[in-house]
């Protein structure tokens, strides 16, 4: 939104929509609701399909487990395949068989976690797909004739006529007409939205929505398959999902850990063979053979699987997919997982004042007369200047003026003067009389151009309104200034607490407004933002984003107008409003279907939650290794004199290995709900979060497996 436009005089942002975006967010749901019936059955089927090596190879940790399963299966069939076993063949086969089963279920559980997350996305995509169907479009030919064609034949640049009751065949822009559109199919909001030509932000229509009144001529802006709903389906389904930078970094870490443990385990037989040879001479053949038995292929693979971070390896993609899903449930469509993740790393939020920090509908609260005029005279001029103004601000001026007894006879010769960003004023021309209201500077210039004088009391009234945090609008008739309108700005409730939370998380908030410095400082103080830029132009948005980025910060911003597009593209996180222009939506990396700019704050929370969840589960997974290490190593190398390290006092090497592997497999499905829901978010600084995570997931990750492995060992009948 043009900031100067928005704050100097009545805005058009709230004129296009008859719904209020600030409504209860909890009530908002996609219509139709995603059908999640049969989700788990489908996920079970998919977890088997994902055993295909071509699919499995994409997850390095689980692929190693999968290959390990094949090898243990071979030694189950023939325990002597890789060397003559020391133990009884039947017993060894049973142990190898149990290990094979557990490893197989470990892979299946990891596949299941991913399949459940994907299934949720697919269910949402199916719900969206049900809103889209082939329909007949009335294409407007260059000679003015109308030809009925299938909507899939429409191409960018084509013009179509949409009449009441019709579905809009494809994404486009209204070039003629005015009408109410039901966008509930994509936004979940049942209230219709007014679409009209000529306005910057109300002319964009989405394919699959329904025209409820009148007629529209729409210019198509998207080729088939490239429309908004098509892109949404592809994104929610995960068809275009690519790894985010954090996921890539974590994948590298997991691959390094797996490589290190692979080398450790692969070299273990050589080392243990050397020690066994030493034991043969020093203690006796029994001790040496016991050590050799501990390094059978099945046990080495078990050791490898227990040591590599299978928990996070199995849940990593599920966490990422669930993050996208959470954003989609918030009625926000992200163009990539990278955008969602960037939300979590954001350092600076650039927010518009009107509609984001304050309620969009500013209302006239008082008329302050200047130049010796009475309140009634000011009310009369205000009424005359606002009679054609259909914005909420304009209507509130009319109401206040009428309340004060003002009357205005409108005849056919009256002509409305529309607001423009250039003139920054609007008004009415009637029988040679010019009634104007607008930014104080603009009205001063207008009066001077008509040969009038600017009274000194105007600046006093202007400052008085500004100090109250309101927006002052001057009114004049011809070359005479009559007074100042006090447009009251109301800060959205609860925002101060949200900004405090963001500050605690280390996120800086900057308010941009076209208002004067005094008004901006009062609102900034009341809302609790960290910084503000007054009398801002659209170019200032880009400047502030660039200057923050130059300091190495990540910046998020919202916008809906065409003039916001460059800033949305420049920002690390650009959130466009669904009611905005096509240019804004294309430049941004997220689109809010509810057109609620305050949601940017929630997105930061979701992004942080995604990163925290991933970090917490990685910490937990790596911490688990310590317990598994203490369970397996002391028991299989007990003959080498490290039996004292068996602090859990596990019954035997077999029982220890099987217990550790069962825990390793079961922890994946146990953590699926946490991976999908995300860990509980708390507004803390990065250091506090790190301490908290290390305490809960690090320490918990060490203690929990000790208890669980011991419990499994007690229950297992192995000796």
């Amino acid at each position, binding site marked *: 939104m043009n900031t100067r436009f928005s704050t100097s005089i009545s805005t058009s942002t709230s004129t296009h929509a008859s719904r209020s975006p600030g409504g209860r967010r909890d009530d908002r749901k996609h219509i139709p609701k995603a059908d999640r019936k049969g989700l788990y059955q489908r996920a079970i089927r998919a977890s088997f399909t994902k055993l295909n*090596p071509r699919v499995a*190879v*994409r*997850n*390095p940790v689980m*692929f*190693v487990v999968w*290959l390990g399963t094949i*090898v243990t299966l*071979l030694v189950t069939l023939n325990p*002597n*395949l*890789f*060397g*003559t076993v020391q133990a009884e063949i039947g017993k060894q086969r049973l142990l190898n068989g149990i290990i094979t089963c557990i490893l197989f279920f470990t892979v299946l559980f990891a596949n299941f976690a991913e399949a459940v997350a994907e299934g949720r996305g697919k269910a949402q995509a199916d719900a969206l797909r049900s809103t889209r169907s082939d329909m007949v479009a009335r294409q407007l030919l260059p000679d003015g004739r109308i030809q009925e064609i299938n909507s899939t034949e429409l191409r960018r640049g084509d013009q179509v006529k949409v009449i009441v009751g019709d579905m809009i065949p494809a994404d486009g822009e209204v070039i003629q007409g005015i009408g109410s559109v039901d966008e509930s199919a994509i936004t979940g909001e049942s209230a219709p939205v007014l679409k009209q030509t000529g306005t910057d932000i109300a002319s964009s229509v989405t394919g699959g929505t329904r025209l409820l009144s009148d007629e529209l001529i729409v210019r198509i802006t998207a080729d088939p398959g490239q429309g908004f709903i098509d892109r949404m389906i592809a994104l929610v389904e995960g068809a275009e999902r*690519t*790894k985010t930078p954090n996921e*890539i970094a974590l*994948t*590298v870490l997991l*691959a*390094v850990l*797996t*490589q290190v443990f*692979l*080398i450790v385990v*692969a070299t273990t037989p050589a080392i243990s063979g050397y020690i066994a040879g030493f034991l043969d001479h020093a203690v006796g053949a029994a001790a040496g053979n016991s050590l050799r038995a501990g390094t059978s*292929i099945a046990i080495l693979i078990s050791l490898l699987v227990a040591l590599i971070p299978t928990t996070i390896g199995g849940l990593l993609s599920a966490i990422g997919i669930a993050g996208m899903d959470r954003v989609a449930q918030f009625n926000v469509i992200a163009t990539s997982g990278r955008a969602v993740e960037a939300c979590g790393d954001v350092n600076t939020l650039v927010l518009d004042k009107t509609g984001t920090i304050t309620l969009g509908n500013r209302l006239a609260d008082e008329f302050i007369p200047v130049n010796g005029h009475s309140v009634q005279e000011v009310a009369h001029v205000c009424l005359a200047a606002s009679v054609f103004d259909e914005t909420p601000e304009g209507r509130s001026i009319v109401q206040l003026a009428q309340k004060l007894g003002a009357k205005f006879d409108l005849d056919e010769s009256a002509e409305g003067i529309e607001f423009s960003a250039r003139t920054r004023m609007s008004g009415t021309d009637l029988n040679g009389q010019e009634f104007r209201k607008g930014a104080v500077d603009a009205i001063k210039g207008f009066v001077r151009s008509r040969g009038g004088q600017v009274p000194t009391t105007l600046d006093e009234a202007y400052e008085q309104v500004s100090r109250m945090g309101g927006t002052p609008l001057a009114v004049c008739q011809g070359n005479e200034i009559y007074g100042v309108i006090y447009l009251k700005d109301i800060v959205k409730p609860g925002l101060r607490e949200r900004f405090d939370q963001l500050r605690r998380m280390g996120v800086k908030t900057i308010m941009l407004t076209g208002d004067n410095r005094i008004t901006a400082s009062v609102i900034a103080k009341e809302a609790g933002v960290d910084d503000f830029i007054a009398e801002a132009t659209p170019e200032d948005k880009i400047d502030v984003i660039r200057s923050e980025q130059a300091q190495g910060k990540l910046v998020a911003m919202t916008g809906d107008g065409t003039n916001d597009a460059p800033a949305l593209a420049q920002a690390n996180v650009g959130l466009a409003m669904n009611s905005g222009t096509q240019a804004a939506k294309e430049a941004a990396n997220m689109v809010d279907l509810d057109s609620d700019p305050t949601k940017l704050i929630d997105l930061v929370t979701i992004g942080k939650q995604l990163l925290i969840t991933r970090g917490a589960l990685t910490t937990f997974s790596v911490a688990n290794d310590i317990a598994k290490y203490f369970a397996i190593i002391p028991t299989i190398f007990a003959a080498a004199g490290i039996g004292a390290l068996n602090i859990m006092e596990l019954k035997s090497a077999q029982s220890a290995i099987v217990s550790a592997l069962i825990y390793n497999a079961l922890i994946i499905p146990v953590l699926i709900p946490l991976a999908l829901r995300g860990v509980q978010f708390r507004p803390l600084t990065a250091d506090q979060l790190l301490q908290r995570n290390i305490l809960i997931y690090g320490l918990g990750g060490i203690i929990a497996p000790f208890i669980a492995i011991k419990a499994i060992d007690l229950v297992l009948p192995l000796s």
Partner: protein
Amino acid sequence: MKFNLLNRSRLLLQSATPVLETIAELWTAWSRQKLPLYLFLALCFNLIVAPVVYAASGNEFSHIQAWALGLLGLATLAISIYLFFVMFIPEKF
């Protein structure tokens, strides 16, 4: 005589065409399927590795065990190379 030879050649060519097509199809499928090719190469390479394993182990392993161990060693090496790939081009995985 000449005519008969020409005719027979033509018939031979006609009957050979489906066979050639099948061979071409198999070759295309073969070049598309990398995994069987790699497995085949590993088995071939194991013909060199297995005797080395057998020789190094003395009489501890049988021929089959040496052959299996050789393959296991190659598989471990392949996993290690694969993990290096993941480390250096992680975006592909």
